């Protein structure tokens, strides 16, 4: 079975299967869009939590860490109920669209980005706050220094978010509906082929998805190595 799956995967890629590229491209679009929004939300949330001292901070960070384990199916169900025509945001008509999938993924990934950002920034803040205080360095300058200093850890954070987004199936299946040529992505296509008993095709799609993840991570590693080499670390 694995042998034929690899053959199938190469076949799909080599023949430039139009359906495959459509599905793959939608997967990338949805995940990257969700990732950008999540980074936009998650970095400030994590950083704020790390820098500010307030009552209930421990509760907030515990909650945030727990949200990293949000079950996708539950998120899918909540977003479905919210976007359903009879739900509070039903008038927007967003259910069964790529936008609905982006929303579900943002809910899933933002806590991951925020919690990991918090961890990174908290460590730096603990280490440098007194030094910066003694040098009379203002908070905005301190934060930008932290961000620059932590850029590689933050890239890993973003990659973790991307990994979760591109591999997720439970939520996008419910809110997207796995509609052909509209909301079908790699993971829901894999689920569909499995349910049709077409295990070789399903596995082939899995190989393609894995390859995509490898390429993305490979690119990031390459950028990192290059930056190190030229002394930008």
């Amino acid at each position: 079975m694995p042998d034929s799956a690899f053959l199938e995967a190469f076949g799909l890629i080599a023949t430039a299967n139009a359906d495959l590229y459509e599905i793959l491209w939608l997967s990338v679009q949805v995940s990257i869009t969700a990732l950008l929004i999540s980074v936009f939300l998650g970095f400030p949330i994590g950083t704020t939590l790390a820098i500010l001292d307030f009552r209930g901070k421990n509760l907030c960070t515990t909650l945030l860490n727990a949200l990293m384990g949000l079950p996708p199916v539950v998120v899918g169900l909540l977003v479905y109920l919210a976007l359903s025509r009879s739900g509070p945001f039903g008038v927007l008509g967003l259910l069964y669209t790529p936008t609905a999938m982006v929303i579900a993924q943002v809910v899933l990934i933002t806590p991951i980005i925020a919690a990991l950002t918090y961890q990174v920034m908290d460590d730096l803040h603990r280490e440098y706050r007194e030094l910066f205080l003694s040098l009379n360095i203002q908070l905005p300058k301190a934060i930008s220094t932290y961000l620059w200093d932590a850029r590689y850890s933050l890239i890993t954070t973003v990659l973790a978010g991307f990994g979760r987004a591109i591999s997720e199936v439970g939520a996008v299946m419910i809110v997207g509906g796995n509609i052909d040529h509209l909301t079908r992505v790699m993971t829901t296509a894999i689920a569909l082929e499995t349910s049709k008993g077409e295990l070789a095709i399903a596995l082939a799609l899995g190989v393609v998805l894995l390859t995509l993840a490898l390429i993305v991570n490979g690119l990031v590693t390459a950028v990192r190595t290059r930056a190190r080499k030229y002394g930008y670390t």
Partner: protein
Amino acid sequence: MTLKETLRTISIALFIPLGSTLAVADSIIVQSTTSTKNSGLYDHILPIVKEDTGITVNVVAVGTGQAIKNAQRCDGDVLLVHAKSSEEKFVAQGFGIKRSDLMYNDFVIVGPNNDPARIQGSKDVSKSLSAIVSNRALFVSRGDDSGTHKAELRLWQASGIDPASASGSWYRETGSGMGATLNTAVGMGAYAMTDRATWIKFGNKGDFKIHVEGDTRLFNQYGVILVNPKNCPNVKSSAGQQFIDWLLSDRGQSIIGSYQVNGKQLFFPNAN
């Protein structure tokens, strides 16, 4: 290109296609049972529907029970399922306009080649189910309130057997779609009941084959209903009705009847 410009270009490239898919003019959502999708029927008819009527039909394939609930929540324009009494209830409660018979096929009981319950060739469902129980053979059920699950429960009841009491021992409810349930059955060498269309198209049969078929109680009727716009103002009733009219027309019916897999007809049109 500066970094800022690059980012802007990327974000525009990403967002435009996402936005454009929202504004498809004549498209409807069909809440459908899985068998019509997994069997490839929609791939066969929807391009022709598009050509004839200009309507893009988006299919959400879930179990019949879930499809009905989704339609009750107004998340679909047309309902295409196979559980007649539930469908009639759906219409009677005002959620749907009118139910029409669309097509039929039949259920079959499949199982491993070694046939531990010795039911191969039987045309009597009740006797076969009793034999499965008395031989303590395994049976995998959908367990998901789907049309097939409801039909299966009716057959157990007609045979005077209460499988729920054996749930977890010889009676195993997957709570999943037909395909996933068949994968499970093949994996554990258990009997399962499936609609014939899904079975013929199913790609992971292993050494499984059809053991029981031909009992009139295995009849499987599909119906189609327009979701009631009075209840759900968002329903695209004219496009939805146009799709239903097409399905029930002579042309639609003959195209449904012409769908074959491995030389076998999967659905038999029977609109009035």
